């Protein structure tokens, strides 16, 4: 069933949906929950991100490492006055668990959802775990949009009462193999009902332009809001690791060279003679260059037709988000007034 906006023109009326619908270049960021039950970690990270993004993704046991649940952390983020995008993977929950968790998430005030298959558990800290994968990410998108639009559970039974209404996102990996199939898989996610897309990290702008050209030829950018994934490099080693070891991540040598150049003043000092202060100064120089590169990437991405925003993944480095957004000229974030309760009728 096709997504029908409510009487107010919105599917959900979340801040992210309002900003995108108003035609603003959207900014989302990422907040990684802690490997502990400490809610203050979330509050501190939320404070760093508040005001510099339109919504913040809360990862779901990212890289298959057990962390505070996305919905639990999301509830704190809501309390902190920031809008979460709940990430939900297919790795840890079957269709019953996903649906019941989403009923709870909606009741707790969450309105955006990113549907993912999830990193395989072999990469995480419980590699001997059994995985679930009852649904895949595309089937998950179908399920949650049907919960919202047809007001039915996955089994087809209608809701008894309030349906959970999420602005539904999905991921795209433009450079994962087979590369030529990626725009078509994106089309499948749109067909399944995705409202917005957040891509894997983009460093190779010419390659991303090629991808977007195909996306435009297929008219996909008119059916979904595409947010390009960006992230600041932290060190030359991180850049090399991403290039060499992460599937679907293309990091041009130019950026690796720039990161190395940023650390050049310390390059001739033997490793064992680097003082603590040296190491800190070098790390700071790398980080500054990483942020600079990220800002340039955003500026270039902004020029590409069909890109509706950026998704900033500063992993365990939430402090970087504000300088990036500010440096890219994307502050202050727009305020698009929320639909009133009366307007928000979806029947």
């Amino acid at each position, binding site marked *: 069933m096709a997504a029908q906006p409510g009487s107010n023109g919105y599917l959900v009326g979340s801040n992210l949906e309002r900003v995108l619908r108003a035609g603003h270049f959207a900014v989302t960021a990422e907040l990684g929950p802690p490997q502990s039950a400490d809610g203050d970690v979330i509050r501190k990270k939320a404070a760093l991100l508040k005001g510099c993004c339109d919504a913040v993704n809360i990862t779901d046991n990212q890289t298959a490492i057990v962390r505070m649940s996305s919905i639990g952390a999301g509830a704190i983020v809501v309390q902190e006055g920031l809008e979460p995008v709940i990430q939900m993977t*297919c*790795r840890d929950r079957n269709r019953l668990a996903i649906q019941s968790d989403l009923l709870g998430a909606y009741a707790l005030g969450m309105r955006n959802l990113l549907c993912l298959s999830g990193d395989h558990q*072999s990469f995480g800290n419980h590699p001997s775990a059994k995985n679930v994968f009852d649904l895949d990410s*595309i*089937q998950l998108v*179908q399920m949650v949009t049907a919960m919202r639009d047809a007001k039915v559970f*996955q089994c087809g039974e209608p809701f008894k009462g309030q349906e959970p209404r999420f602005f539904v996102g999905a991921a795209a990996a433009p450079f*994962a*193999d087979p590369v030529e199939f990626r725009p078509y898989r994106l089309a499948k996610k749109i067909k399944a009902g995705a409202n917005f897309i957040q891509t894997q990290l983009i460093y190779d702008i010419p390659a991303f332009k090629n991808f977007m050209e195909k996306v435009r030829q297929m008219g996909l950018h008119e059916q979904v809001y595409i947010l390009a994934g960006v992230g600041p490099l932290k060190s030359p080693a991180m850049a090399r690791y991403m290039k060499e070891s992460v599937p679907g991540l293309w990091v041009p040598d130019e950026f690796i060279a720039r990161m190395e150049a940023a650390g050049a003043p310390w390059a001739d000092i033997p490793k064992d003679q680097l003082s603590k202060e040296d190491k800190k100064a070098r790390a700071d120089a790398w980080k500054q260059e990483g942020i600079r590169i990220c800002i340039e990437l955003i500026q270039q991405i902004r020029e590409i037709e069909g890109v509706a925003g950026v998704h900033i993944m500063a992993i365990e480095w939430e402090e970087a988000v504000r300088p990036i957004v500010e440096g890219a000229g994307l502050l202050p974030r727009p305020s698009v007034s929320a639909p009133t309760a009366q307007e928000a009728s979806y029947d």
Partner: protein
Amino acid sequence: MIVAEQKSLDEMKTLIGDAQKVLVVGCGTCVTVCFAGGAREAAIVAASLRMATQLDGKIKTVSDVTVQRQCEWEYLDEIAEQVRAADVVLSLGCGIGVQAIAEHFPQTWVVPGLNTSFLGLPTEQGVWAERCAACGDCLLGRTGGICPIARCSKSLLNGPCGGSEAGHCEVNPDIPCAWQLIYDRLSSLGKLDLLLEIQPPKNWKAARDGGPRKIVREDLRLAAEEE
């Protein structure tokens, strides 16, 4: 075929425990073909156990016998006497063989000598690979004859995920990406349009998730009664 591999000799010894008379039972079907539990392997395991128990100073009587199929009562009947005379049976059959012996000989202690690995085939000399997950609802007609349930690490029905790189799965470079294989095959056969359809959530009832499975063929049951 069912593909299995032998447990370590140490684990077999532990499983046998204090039993004095050990009967190693091989199986002449799948595990013979995958060189894990046929007549030859049964003889070698028996000899190894004899040697090991001699070295340990706890001499045991170890003999071996191999049946055509451990998973059929009639073949197990042939070795009933040897089984009953043994303190323990070390089955070199798959998990089905072990259970068939246990079920057929209620008084006999039976332990497994193999780990039953998967349903697969030999891809080259000395290499076996998984091909079927016995999900009970075959979808190979939609995926060009390549099974994503058995061969995709995430069993995706609408793959590939972002972890497909240069033809292999990010979980392990030794795993070919099933969805790359599906893509290539459908591409070469001019059937890529099949990949544009969204595959709906799978009905896992027919798989193990629906509980232990059983097939009843009334036609065959009637035929048997008539005989």
